[in-house]
């Protein structure tokens, strides 16, 4: 029985530690700087190439959540179905991977930050 209690305590500790390491991703301090550096040069009205072709503006949180003229790019809580994550992760083919052109590609950490933020509800925090 003591062995079982020990096992339960260990499992509980692992679960709690898992909860503790699940950090909250902040839009303002984690996500916005990535978008600013890697995406905004094209997705900015009125002349940004990305804005002209899709209507997606990354000027602010509101414009990002508004999405493109074809539909929203973020489904809060669901990075698998969100277009932003599909394109940054290259899930729509390498030729569609964002950012396009001369912009520096996103690092694995930056891709993970965007994924976590969307999965956590894509809130303005």
């Amino acid at each position, binding site marked *: *029985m003591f062995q*079982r209690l020990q096992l339960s305590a260990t499992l509980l500790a692992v679960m709690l530690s898992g909860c503790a390491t699940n950090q909250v991703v902040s839009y303002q301090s984690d996500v916005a700087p990535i978008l600013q550096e890697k995406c905004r040069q094209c997705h900015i009205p009125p002349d940004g190439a990305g804005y002209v*072709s899709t*209507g997606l503006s990354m000027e602010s949180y*509101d414009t990002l*959540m*508004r*999405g493109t*003229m*074809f*539909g*929203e790019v*973020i*489904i*809060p809580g*669901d990075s*698998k*179905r*969100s*277009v932003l994550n*599909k394109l940054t992760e290259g*899930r*729509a*083919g390498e*030729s*569609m991977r964002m950012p396009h052109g001369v912009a520096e590609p996103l690092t694995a950490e930056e891709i993970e930050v965007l994924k976590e933020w969307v999965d956590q509800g894509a809130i303005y925090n």
Partner: protein
Amino acid sequence: MWLMFCCREVRPDGYGGGMDRVSKCFSCLSRILTRSVCTSILIPALVLSPLIQAEESTKVSRFTLQREKTPEPVVSSLAPRKHDVSNYTLQREKTPEFSQLQPRTVTLPEIEIAENSGAYHIKVVAVIAAPAQFVRKVLTDYKHIYRLNPSIIESEVLGRGDDDSAMVRTRVIGCAAYFCEELERVEKVQLLPSGNIVAEIVPEKSQFKSGITYWQIKGFGDRCEVTYNANLEPDIYIPPVVGKFLVKKSIREEMQISFANLEKISSVLAARDWQQDNQFVDRCDKVEMPMRVSCAEGASKNLSVMD
């Protein structure tokens, strides 16, 4: 009662049972507790969720019908509600830059789904508020095929043939109640001379035993009727009765989302083309006569350069 049931062999003084019996008593109690939680929460949730979702969809339909009665419909009735961030959509409708790009009609698609020995036959007929050429353009724009449905979580053009065909890989996530399954699919998609589209699944590269899809697009003016016919045989285990019911329900929802997006994207492209044409004509009106010929040619070519 559970305590008595579980610990009936353990005497209060510990004799006749020992630590082993006490441990058995606790594990028995925890088992019963777990089962009772499962019975009281999970099973009703599983049983009721389709009903709750069905009720929600009824509400959506009513909402749609109310909109249909309004003199100036601004949103398609096909518009998906599941992933729709309504506030943002409504905000966008109000902004002038998007106001001209909204679908102009409201028509619910007719959807029939039948299952026979693991093969699903799906038929959808819908009137799309966009010219046929733009609907075709959206359906054959394989690079952007993910726009049609959020459930297309991966897509890729593997190659193109000389006969207006392309090998397209998609990975689709389908959820029935709380269970989600990802399905890999490779299709040979071909635009036929008639303007219709046929897509045949390559079974050896897909999680489908077989599958063929046929898109028939009949244009009339600035609208078209799209008939979608598909026979799909997924290569996964689907539990009988409840599983098949949930799969059909899920297919129905996904088809509604796909057709809503098809209408939306096609009409956006049509509106954009119309705007470009007008801008071109405006510019052309200000130049000398000899230029007008090339301007007219340029305007007619806008369709091919609007990417």
